[in-house]
């Protein structure tokens, strides 16, 4: 995100960016989050506002291909960038393989977290065409689902990866390759606070967020400073 950008505001400013492949512009106060700009200015209400502080992932969208929490990203910080939301995944009336898999595997109940879960999985599959279950868990560890659809989300992501082989969406990196712009980069490994090495708990990947047990490290989508309301 721009670090030496000129001072903006306090009044509304024009922000031009690409949303789902099309040019878009909004006029918003600098404190407006990308999430609120998408929902209120552009009518893209797929991404949800649940915690509004970067803990739940229901607002996950892709900025330049990387998953971010839209509630922690300022709209002005997205000027000139490419934003992808859940609304942009289906092409010509055909659902994206991840969307198809979510339906087939019943990977949602109320559906409120679903747009965010889907975007996290889409980002994963772009950087890792053959993920393991642990890869999937790491990718959606920052997406809460209160209905508890987690087992089906993992199953859906793995099925989508299988189905996507040969699909044309975007050239995927070879299995095992790490993209610098992919999900790994967007979710830096936070330091562990318990002093235990991650290897002692093989079931819990490093960087994973767990609420049970000793405080595990928690991933955060890229955090952009935000004006306090």
């Amino acid at each position, binding site marked *: 995100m721009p670090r030496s950008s000129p001072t903006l505001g306090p009044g509304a400013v024009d922000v031009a960016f690409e949303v789902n492949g099309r040019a878009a512009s909004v006029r918003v106060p600098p404190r407006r989050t990308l999430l609120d700009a998408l929902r209120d200015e552009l009518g893209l209400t797929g991404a949800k506002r*649940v915690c509004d502080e970067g803990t739940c992932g229901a607002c996950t969208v892709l900025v330049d291909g990387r998953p971010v929490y839209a509630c922690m990203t300022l709209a002005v910080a997205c000027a000139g960038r490419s934003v992808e939301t859940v*609304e942009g995944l289906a092409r010509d009336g055909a659902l994206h393989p991840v969307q198809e898999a979510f339906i087939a595997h019943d990977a949602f109940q109320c559906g409120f977290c679903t747009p965010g879960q889907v975007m996290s999985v889409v980002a994963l599959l772009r950087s890792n065409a053959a993920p393991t279950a642990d890869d999937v868990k790491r990718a959606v560890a920052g997406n*809460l689902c209160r209905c508890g659809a987690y087992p089906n989300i993992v199953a859906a992501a793995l099925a989508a990866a299988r189905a996507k082989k040969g699909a044309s969406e975007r050239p995927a990196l070879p299995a095992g390759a790490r993209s610098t712009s992919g999900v790994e980069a967007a979710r830096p490994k936070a330091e562990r606070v318990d002093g235990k090495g991650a290897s002692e708990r093989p079931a819990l990947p490093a960087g994973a967020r*767990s609420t049970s*047990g000793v405080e595990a490290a928690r991933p955060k989508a890229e955090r952009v400073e935000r004006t306090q309301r």
Partner: protein
Amino acid sequence: MSGERPPSARVVRTRVEFEGEISEELALVQGEDLAAWGEGAELRVVGHPARRIEGAAKVTGRAVYTHDLRFPGMLYARILRSPYPRARVRRVDPSRALALPGVRSVLHRFNAPKAAFRGEETIFRDEVRFVGDEVAAVAAESEETADEALGLISVDYEVLPHVVDLEEAIDDSSPRIDEKGNVHDAGSYQRGDLRRAMREADAVVEGTYRTSTQMHNSLETHGAVAVWDGDLLTVFESTQHIFGVRQGLQAALRIPYAKIRVVCEHMGGGFGSKGGIGKYTIVAALFARELGVPVRCVLDRREENLAAGNRSATLQRVRIAAKGGRISAIAHDAWSSAGQGRWVADPTGPTKGLYDVPNVAVRSYRVMANTGSLSAFRAPGYVEGTFALESSIDELADTIGMDPLELRRRHAGATSDPISGLRYSAKRLIECFDIGAEEIGWSRRRPKGLRGSAPGLRRGLGMASQLWGGGGAPPAYATVHLNPDGTAIVRIGTQDIGTGTRTIVAQVCAEELGIDLDAVRVEIGDTDSPYAPISAGSLTVASIAPAIRLAAADAREQLLDVASGVLEVPRAELAVERGHVVSRGARTPLAKVFEELQNYTVVGRGGRMPNPEDLSLKTFGAHFAEVEVDPAVGEVRVEKVVAVHDIGRVIDPLTARSQVEGGVIQALGFALTEERVLDRPLGRVLNADLERYKVPTVMDVPRIVARFVDVPDSEANNTGAKGLGEPPIIPTAAAVANAVANALGVRIRHLPLTPARVLEALA
């Protein structure tokens, strides 16, 4: 349905169970019921996995939730909430807020119109009673402006003594915060002779159990959008009960039902907390009426956790006795924190009804505190009570040296309800035990636990049983419109809270009408449709599915009348199969039958029949858990949960499995991590957010195996299906606690089982 219609409706009495409470109510009987789909029924759609029919809308972001609604000119309402747990509101000065550009109105107790809400005359109290209680509301042109305005309202509070903690509130030396005292009787029950049984027992075990306040944290917070069109009010609300919202609006605003429409197309979870109108609904409606534009009032996450309900913290004392290798007596006293709620769930329900024990005495108390009201949270009371009961049964089994599953088996076979004496319509609890024990490998269990997967780790197995209602009840009505092209539209005033209701509605209609699933459109979530009950208490399927079946059958019978005339074939020779009328090998598409009739439409209607007299309708189940515990750091890792349920017929095996997994995961939060933390001196909730309040993530999920007995309960209703919403959350925490006790040889009687509590117990 053929032949003569009864001339009029009959009124009968019927037994209705809701959230563990049984009542006898009047029911209207119209028409005749259908014979139940029995065990051998050959069904084409029902009982087969069906994908959610709204799936595409939900994965594309197209599904519109209350939060997503935007109307031209819509204003945003936000609520000012008390920063004190108890205070008198002496003065409210909104002048600075009103001076802020974009602010359109401020409501508070000195200017708001009367609007009745839960027995009170106004939504803004003279004495605010918890941190988060409503003090004032702002309507503004943007949410940001409304938020800013809240900080500009001056309120003069007279701070009063408070108490927020359950056990402090029980203490006589604490402030009395209610005229009638802090502790209120909430019911008692007894059978047999408890004193004598305790005196004559071979062994008696006593324990005090504590459970913590669990917060629903539905991802979509409570909220409403109110739109007036002349004197017609339409409210869009994230709710489990559109008709309940309508009733609340009628009471608050004193306008007739015909002038109110409540809509809930999709909603982002409720788990019991969205059972009716909220103050935010009234705020939206009042502002919208005053200002003549649509108004949206949606809670933020913090408000959701302060003022939109929670599962009561409980303090429970259980005394349990054995004689001759059987449980001879149970005494169970329970105190539940209601916050400012005026009812409380009953943790002693499972103690009264789950096992066939001759001597039982229970008492339940509602304790008032200066915290937000409880609201139903998925099996309210039963989750908390099952933990205490099933923990104490394991303790008793350990004491008398018996396998805890064997001890339960001796009390699980009764064929009649120990409370009412009525015969169960169906009960397959022992089969649940057998399936679960096999699947978890119960024979591996050792009284002192097992070695873990690494040096120092301990492993344990535990189980617990589940009792709940789920039999459903009238009233519930559906209509089925059969279109001239052979497609159908079902209308029923239920709502899909994420459980898959829409899909089940379509399945039952398609099955009975004889058309394909994708030929059915489902219209729910609108009070302009026929009435259906609250989506709570595991009521939905068993209430609405029989009505939909009747409506579809009514449509089919009318269709056959039409087809007989059009095709000139005797009616008795006709049937409907997969969108065709068939007779002696000839198949005529429905569209062809209707071709010359053009827009004549068959409209079928059905109403839920009363429950059978003199039968007890229940659901049963058993959960088995395998855990590994690290005694060095107090960490509990649940490795596997086997969840076996007896809910009669399973209508959609795909979504039913999801329902069970979700219930288990929510229960694991209750068991291991979820706990509202209060600052007692300030009366504040310290973790009213998703950062510090720990709901399970994907990383916390063990292997979950969901199994169903799946035998229709043909005496319960015409579909043989019962409810599944609550059952899967009920026994998990108890099974995990028993597994942890098995692993460690130490019993922890306080949920959640945090590392700190495990270490404390081991110290």
